[in-house]
């Protein structure tokens, strides 16, 4: 059972107080009506699903009920970090990760 540090409550709580809401940092298209079916499908359904480091959106459902992000390892289950939605420093790190993503990323 995970021990998750809620960045809003600022204390460690047990996994069963939380709910995972899927992959984090997925940008909703700004103008849904203008997107192609492919872009919309990609946004809705397609996920990176890596074995290793992963950023996820979680909610402290039995607690402050706020959403926040977890950066953790999907293989070892180690939690590297939890941070608030508006954490600026993580945004910079994230942009760097994205620029390193494999070149075929948009083949579909």
């Amino acid at each position, binding site marked *: 059972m995970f021990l998750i540090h809620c960045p809003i409550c600022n204390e460690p709580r047990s996994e069963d107080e939380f709910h995972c809401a899927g992959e984090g940092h997925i940008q909703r298209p700004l103008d849904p009506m203008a997107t192609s079916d492919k872009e919309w499908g990609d946004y809705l359904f397609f*996920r990176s699903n890596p074995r290793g480091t992963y950023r996820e959106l979680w909610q402290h459902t039995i607690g402050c009920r706020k959403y926040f992000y977890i950066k953790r390892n999907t293989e070892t289950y180690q939690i590297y970090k939890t941070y608030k939605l508006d954490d600026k420093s993580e945004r910079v790190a994230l942009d760097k990760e994205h620029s390193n993503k494999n070149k075929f990323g948009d083949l579909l």
Partner: protein
Amino acid sequence: MKKYSAFSLFKHGLNHHQDWQRVWRNPTPKKHYDIIIVGGGGHGLATAYYLAKEFGITNVAVIEKGYLGGGNTARNTTIVRSNYLWDESSHLYEHSLKLWESLSQELNYNVMFSQRGVLNLGHTLQDMRDIQRRVNANRLNGIDGEILDPQQIKEIVPYMDCSANRRYPVLGASWQPRGGVARHDAVAWGFARGASELGVDLIQQCQVTGFEIKNGMVTGVKTDSYGLISAAKVGCVVAGNSGVVASMAGLRLPIESHPLQAFVSEPIKPILDTVVMSNHVHGYISQSDKGDLVIGSGIDHYNGYGQRGSYPIIEHAVAAILELFPNFSRVRMNRQWGGIVDTCPDACPIISKTPIKNLYFNCGWGTGGFKATPGSGHVFAASLAKDEMHELAKPFSLDRFYHGSLIDEHGAAGVAH
């Protein structure tokens, strides 16, 4: 292939079982194959078997990073049924169920497919409406199904608490008598034996590390133990690792990998002769021929490749089973383990070509892949052999996530995704 029978057992018994033929060969891979199957689980081995048997393509290799049947094939709770809601999926699962019914004879390997019936319980009025809708749909598709009331359920499962004063009273159930359970490791071994005999090379302890892709077309796979092995076509059947293997080809899939766990109790004398599933209390249970109660429950709600389940699910599974069977309270659990299931947003599989030519994927079976093993292998083999998706596989293409033609089977999947 030396045939297995009671007589062969007797004959080998006379000389102390010293000269049994090996169940499958352990070959060194060739440089080139017509078709390479990545993943030596039940689905991959079934694909290879049917390629050789039905379509005469024997220059085939199955590449497995661990050992045959070492993944979800031998980690599931072995339930086989076909009572799905929509036409597309029920046709596919029914195709599979028909193959199950003669599989032991087909493979000359007893997979112990035991049609002891599957109950899907309803605990609320909405459950019962859903059950009615599903059973009616099944019947229209020629699939056996009945709606039972608590009294009839009690006759089939005498020790289930069907009283009205439970927290989640049992109001009724759907009943598929042709459903049941099978011996899962035997399924992998039976297909492996059959495929190997027909000339398929089964390469174990060999991990695919990448694909050779030229001009948008796959031409081979890179492996850790044998380097590059070229192939005209590649089919990936890697379940929980689908996302990882897809990313080697630069693809993303509409799939998330979650841990799903299962449990068995210590062996007890037979007390439960059917499969009992409940979406509402969220647990399912049957009893094996050894006497273990085989129990399953929901998936972990987060992504994971750990092959172990999270703790809250354990408590939940036990609570669900005791809600149905309070008398099992003193039976002790023996083992608990996890697998990695590849869940799709609509709880239906993906059997599809990909944007890379000659690279095929068969994945997304989520929590219900075992029941589809022969059917999935059969339609995937047909698609690979003819370069055109099998009729039954067509609705399950990757494109459906762009067209919006999803096949929502969350209601019939039995395990919430």
